[in-house]
């Protein structure tokens, strides 16, 4: 089953929630949202987010892909790419 970007964004909010202080900001994220600059997520939690996303989508995210995931939109790109690889 293929998920569309909007559905992934909705699920990503759940992945990001434990690491985001500002829940109102989280509700309003879009593909341009920067995880550190906009959501003020502690950089030490970025690895947690990568691992939680791996579990959520049953994918593996390598170093080169992980470093693209500082924005919501590029994170969705990586998730779709990896889901297609494992399909």
């Amino acid at each position, binding site marked *: 089953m293929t998920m569309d970007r909007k559905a992934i964004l909705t699920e990503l909010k759940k992945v990001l929630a434990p690491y985001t202080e500002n829940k109102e900001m989280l509700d309003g994220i879009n593909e341009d949202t920067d995880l550190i600059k906009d959501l003020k997520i502690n950089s*030490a939690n970025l690895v*947690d987010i990568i*691992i939680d996303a791996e579990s959520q989508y049953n994918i593996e995210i390598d*170093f080169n892909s*992980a*470093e693209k995931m500082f924005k919501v939109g590029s994170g969705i790109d990586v998730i779709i790419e990896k889901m297609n690889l494992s399909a």
Partner: protein
Amino acid sequence: MKSTGNDIVALGSIDNQRTGQFRFYSKILSTSEQALYHQPQFAEMPFKNYVWLLWSVKESAYKYLKRNLPGLVFSPAKIIIQHIEIPIGGLGKLESIQWDGNGDNQAFYRGKVVYESYSLYFRSKINGEWIATVVNDTESFENVYWGIQSIVATGYDHQSKEARTLLLSRLHSFFPGNLQVGKSPLGYPVIIKDTEDMHIPVSLAHDDHFVAYSFILDPVDSN
């Protein structure tokens, strides 16, 4: 351009179980760094401390390099710690939460970290509550200033404000007057005095109940 970079990790806020999982630490530590942990000097260091010590070095190095490499993205496993020396006498007692570059070298974890063709050097402190690091581009940390403080409340805005206040209180001992912390167009902190950028490299960090700063002065300013 001269730069600085620091980081602090609150040990109380880390997930010990997750830190010990290969799928977690392998996203932070390179293969060579995983092997380095098995050297005899780390026999008494808990693995979680090792992982987060190296994280704090990598994040500090990233902050240092970002000033001169604006497009750099933090990818911890690509910033490699080449060697680490441990403090003489083990962890020792924590004498101070404020240091300048003339401090006792042997009281710190210290070593070399590389990213592509760039080499940096680090000093780190570990106590029961936090791991903190500062990096510089030479083995000498003369004129590098570094401080850490605990704070009562958490929350991003409060932590950020407390870190700035701590930094400014130290800078005021060198530069009396109206100092403020601003932000460069690239996002790193800058020191403003009477609307002018003072071009002092500064770095700020916070995690949980702890805030920290580092800055480097020209030798003429530090006298």
